[in-house]
């Protein structure tokens, strides 16, 4: 590992790259602070500028924006009570009350330090875990990959909760969109309906920007009143109390470690990003805190937990992208796009084949957290100025800029039409209550899935291979459980079967783990079965009457 770090460091630590990262961090902090302006949008807007940079410079800049964006949300959340991004929703629960009680500087300081520690812990985990996970990824054959993609899509859809049918349809529509243009194996025209230009298919970045940024921006200026709203609330410049805040955060190191763990774990799960992790970490902090009655009134633990978790989530998401080459959320999908633009194809062999780029990404993630820490005070002044700009002004300019940026991607005029078409699609999908994330992941994963399926087909025409390969079976079984998960969540405590869901999950998943090579995994499988049996026995002992109906 250390020789790879030594290889990457000279590439990353150049004056140009550091300056670009500083600019990226400031841009991310500002973008994250503006309510309604997502981090993904900020990274998308920076992407066209990275085309002319080296892969290391481009990716380092984007990571700086990503890290900055995750931390920027706390500024508006704490000062105005309006979360800058969904990933800082829980920060407002205690950050805003603490700021209103006259301790805005302390609240901001706690948020900044928590984000920093969350990011740094995640960076260390990323550096240690990603290469190991990539080694496991090398065991994957095309059939396993295909099943992994199916699992990623079902999990994404299942996170849509009550809208699971729409989530699945959204994911399938995304896969269908990816089939338009030409087929993956021979490049023969497909579904172009006689339109020559459509043979190019839909490049996924314009699709992604159209659905995500274009549709969303227009949704924000629906009415004249909304269009004329300023970007933020009544924010004022305050002095960030770094020293006192650092003491408070370090005194609560248990919460920091737990929240960072939650953040990384949630980041690893497909589609479960920082929007979920910050609330989960807040909930856990509240449950375990000795001062839980203070939560909602300005509890320090209530700021530490969400801010640590949301920055740590980025590390988790990068682990999967770097190790397996699969994006788990919108952000890593954009990162994947950026890597492809620079002719870098992420896969399990990516870290070993391209150690310079891979370890530059690890280091950039680490360094960006330090930059965020140093630049927060400076950016706060910029944020206060920006809050006075009206929403429609930003919308008009960004719509033009996205068109320009998407054209610059490949110098292809069709990409701007793609942006427009999917802007309309995204707008209507939102209006009709369809979740957007499965659609985007479907578009990104569609061609990967088809390529893997064609490799499976070339090797064997026996469909049983999906069930006979342990990893493939593992992912398919997980996909089945994830489909039942929303019903389980809804019925938990009401229906008797829900008490046996975790037990069934453990015992069923033990089977493919048992079939895996080596001596450790069969032992793990046996332990899983034993744990499942113990849980089943415990539930059986508690009686057949559901707990809440007693």
């Amino acid at each position, binding site marked *: 590992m250390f020789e790879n770090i030594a290889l990457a460091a000279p590439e990353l630590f150049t004056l140009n790259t550091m300056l670009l990262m500083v600019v990226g961090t400031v841009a991310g902090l500002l973008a994250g602070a503006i309510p309604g302006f997502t981090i993904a949008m900020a990274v998308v807007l920076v992407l*066209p*500028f990275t*085309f*002319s940079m080296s892969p290391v410079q481009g990716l380092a800049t984007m990571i700086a924006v990503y890290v900055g964006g995750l931390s920027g949300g706390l500024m508006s959340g704490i000062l105005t009570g309006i979360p800058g991004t969904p990933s800082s929703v829980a920060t407002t629960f205690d950050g805003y009350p603490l700021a209103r009680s006259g301790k805005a500087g302390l609240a901001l300081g706690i948020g900044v330090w928590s984000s920093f520690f969350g990011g740094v812990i995640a960076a260390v985990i990323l550096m240690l875990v990603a290469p190991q996970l990539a080694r496991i990824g090398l065991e994957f054959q095309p059939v396993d990959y295909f099943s992994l993609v199916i699992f990623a899509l079902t999990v994404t859809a299942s996170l849509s909760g009550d809208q699971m*049918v*729409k989530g*699945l*349809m959204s994911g*399938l*529509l995304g*896969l*269908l969109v990816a*089939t338009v243009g030409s*087929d*993956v*194996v*021979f490049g*023969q*025209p*497909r*579904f172009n*309906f006689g339109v020559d230009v459509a043979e190019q298919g839909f490049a996924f970045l314009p699709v992604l920007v159209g659905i995500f940024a274009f549709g969303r921006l*227009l*949704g924000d*200026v*629906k*009415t*004249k009143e909304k*269009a*004329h709203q300023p970007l933020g609330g009544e924010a004022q410049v305050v002095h960030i109390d770094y020293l006192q805040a650092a003491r408070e955060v370090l005194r609560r190191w248990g919460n920091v470690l737990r929240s960072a763990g939650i953040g990384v774990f949630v980041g690893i799960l497909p589609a479960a990003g920082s929007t979920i992790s910050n609330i989960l970490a807040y909930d856990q902090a509240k449950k375990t805190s000795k001062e839980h009655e203070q939560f909602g009134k300005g509890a320090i633990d209530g700021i530490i937990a969400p801010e640590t978790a949301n920055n740590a989530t980025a590390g988790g998401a990068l682990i999967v992208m770097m190790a397996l080459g699969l994006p788990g959320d919108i952000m890593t999908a954009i990162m994947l796009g950026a890597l492809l633009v620079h002719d870098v194809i992420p896969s399990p062999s990516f870290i070993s084949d391209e150690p310079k780029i891979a370890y530059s990404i690890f280091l950039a993630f680490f360094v960006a957290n330090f930059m965020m820490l140093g630049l927060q005070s400076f950016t706060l002044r910029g944020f206060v100025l920006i809050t006075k700009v*009206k929403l*429609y*002004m930003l*919308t*008009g*300019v960004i*719509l*033009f*800029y996205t*068109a*320009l940026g998407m*054209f*610059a991607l490949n*110098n292809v*005029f069709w990409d*701007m*039409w793609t942006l*427009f078409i999917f*802007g*309309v699609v995204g*707008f209507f999908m939102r*209006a*009709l*209550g369809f979740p957007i994330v499965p659609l985007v992941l479907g578009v990104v994963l569609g061609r990967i*899935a*088809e390529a893997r*399926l*064609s490799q499976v*087909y*070339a090797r064997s025409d026996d469909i049983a291979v999906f069930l006979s390969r342990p990893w493939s079976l593992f992912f398919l079984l997980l996909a089945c459980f994830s489909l039942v998960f929303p019903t389980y969540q809804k019925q938990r405590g009401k229906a008797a079967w829900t008490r046996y869901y975790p037990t069934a999950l453990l015992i069923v998943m033990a089977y493919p783990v048992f079939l895996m090579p080596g001596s450790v995994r069969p032992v793990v499988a046996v332990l899983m079965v034993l744990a499942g049996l113990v849980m089943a026995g415990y539930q059986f002992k508690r009686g057949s009457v559901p707990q809440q109906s007693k």
Partner: protein
Amino acid sequence: MTVNRDFFVAVFFFVLSAVMFVASYWLPEPMFGQLPSWTWPRVILVPLGFLSLILVMQSQRGGQERVELSELGRWFKENVNPFICFGLFFGFLYLMPVLGMLLGGLIYVFLTLSVLGGWKPRQLVLHAGISVFFVFGMWAVFSLALGVVLPEGTILRVY
């Protein structure tokens, strides 16, 4: 039968799956015994059609209200800004070969800002200023600094 929003959506998706499924029969024959180009689309379309039917059933069970024509009109009225913006963007792209990125961009941003922000003289001056600053600025960054050959349009074509 309740004709509500989800019912329409489900029917749309069902028809889409059916049309695409039929279109998959027009795809060329595979070569060298590899995966036919229709296989993957059909793997997608069959569950999509099936889920559309489930959505039809759900739409009949759920508590969604019947869609009235007046409701639809109100929805369009509420979303008039996005529709105008889409229209302007369409015009921007359609006229790009003539106006190019610079002229087209200036007109597009100015019109979008004015549609969303208002047409009072002071606002128009502000919108014109924003358009010139940002469009020209970004055009300069991309074409002069990053070396991207942006569409120049027939009006500004110099050769």
